[in-house]
């Protein structure tokens, strides 16, 4: 590692070491306001997708963003009680011909407003300029190829984000159903190199790792051991389901059993871990047994959180 990179990496590590160790959180599901109001005490923090709280009329509109009053009202209520962290879906940091600085500025405004201790997005692209006359939305998130050219492009953008939003920025590892041949790096190599090069932290979605391991036949534990876990600030845990002959990251109900074991591996070796976020798709709420089912998963995550090594703070 050259001297500049080492300095950057060391500064970024210091930044992560001072973050608050929050505990166990939930990815906010807007259609369950009653659950949120009744059980906010069961959460150490709430992760939100900020993009779901506003309508985006596009870069040429003025004003571009219009907030959704009802959702924001509940969010304000939550934010008055527990910390809120931002987990955006709208940046599309991997898009070759688009870097949406307006989106970054909007995230910066929300970070200031809600005091996100960190914020995150996905290591993929979901926007392709020129898809049609009105929109650039691809309709799904597609992983970037793990090549050096892509790494350089994303690293520069991460630096821009870090410059504008004054808290650590995390990128989430992908779930992928198509395995691209001839990539220059493995996914752990890419995550480690990107993190060292740009200073971003990692949001390690343990269920994504598990899904990919099931579908593409690799050892999920070996994947986790290959990632620089000192860069991991937040983990996601979830469940999935079968579709089209593959196991998918559908967030279908309780956390998949093998994910709990993988989570323990992460917890034992991630000194800067600040939060475990349970994700579920709201349509599965009744099938999980409603509030009791969600609370059961949160309790299990809390037990895992308690197994952190003493030095983890």
């Amino acid at each position, binding site marked *: 590692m050259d001297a500049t990179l080492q300095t950057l990496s060391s500064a970024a590590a210091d930044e992560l070491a001072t973050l608050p160790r929050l505990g166990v959180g939930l990815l906010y599901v807007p259609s369950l306001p009653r659950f949120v109001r009744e059980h906010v005490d069961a959460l150490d923090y709430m992760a939100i997708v900020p993009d779901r709280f506003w309508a985006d009329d*596009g870069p040429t509109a003025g004003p571009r963003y219009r907030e959704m009053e009802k959702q924001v009202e509940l969010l304000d209520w939550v934010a008055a009680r527990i910390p809120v962290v931002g987990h955006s879906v709208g940046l599309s940091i991997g898009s070759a011909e688009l870097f949406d600085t307006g989106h970054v500025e909007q995230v910066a405004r929300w970070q200031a407003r809600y005091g996100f201790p960190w914020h995150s997005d996905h290591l993929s*692209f979901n926007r392709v*300029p020129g*898809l049609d006359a009105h929109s650039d*939305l691809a309709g799904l998130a597609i992983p970037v*190829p793990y090549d050096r050219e892509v790494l350089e492009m994303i690293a520069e953008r991460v630096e821009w984000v870090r410059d504008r939003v004054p808290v650590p920025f995390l990128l989430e590892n992908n779930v992928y*159903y198509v395995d691209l041949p001839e990539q220059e790096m493995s996914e752990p190599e890419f995550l480690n190199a990107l993190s060292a090069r740009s200073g971003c932290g990692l949001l390690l979605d343990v269920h994504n790792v598990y899904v990919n391991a099931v*579908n593409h036949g690799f050892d999920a534990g070996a994947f986790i051991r290959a990632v620089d876990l000192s860069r991991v600030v937040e983990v996601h845990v979830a469940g999935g389901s079968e579709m089209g002959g*593959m196991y998918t990251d559908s967030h279908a109900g309780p956390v998949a059993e093998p994910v709990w074991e993988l989570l323990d591996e992460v917890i034992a070796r991630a000194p800067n871990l600040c939060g475990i976020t349970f994700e579920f798709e709201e349509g599965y709420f009744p099938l999980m047994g409603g509030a009791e089912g969600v609370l059961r998963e949160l309790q299990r995550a809390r037990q895992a959180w308690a197994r952190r090594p003493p030095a983890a703070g």
Partner: protein
Amino acid sequence: MTLAAFQRAMADLAASPALCGRVREDAEAALAGYALTEVERRRVASAAAQRGMRVNCMLYRSNRLSPLASQLPNTFLLLGPDLRDTADGYWVENPALERNAPTEVRRFAAYVQRRTVEGTLSEPLLPEVLAWEMAVYELALLPRLRILAEAADDAARARTDGPLRLHPLVDVAAFSREPAALLRAFAAKRRPPYDDIPAGEYHLLCDLRGERRAMVPIDAATAAAMLAVRDGENIGEVAAGALIERGLVVAR
């Protein structure tokens, strides 16, 4: 930048099982329009041949349909077996997901409405159920608390002989089947026919003034008066007084 062409190809594949098939048959010809490097061409061809691309195609359809289905669930119920053709036709006209969710819902609703007028979609209840769900959807988009605060003053100023408008948080929907029974059938995910449900002229008040949205049956005279106010017509002092008393109209 060829990365852009690669990304465009991957997005196009997810949106089009037909393109996946063409790439599997003859990648050279099917990808001729994309400025790809040799490595990217091999990657795209490999992707099209993997079962994972079928999953991507399913996720694409699900991601585009789910937001619409969640807002127009009963329209989707009525579309039933016509849903696949309707979605395909809609996506041909609108290849990309609209960034503004309300715009996506509105243009899908307009597409379904057009297909019913053309006769391609023949379920008789479809137009009225779509109109009702869109009315409720539009009301739900409004900033309720701000509107309630603003409308309070207009309500106080409302006079039976003055210009009136509907309260911004109410609307009226017409049904040709008894609405309570119809909504029960919808709640049970029961598809048509609904021959056991009484036919006639019915109206529902869609009311989002309260914490919870309310769907209340109203008589034909009240519905007619509300629709006349909505159209800017004069309804007479007695009818106006009744609507003012219920808070359904405010001063314009």
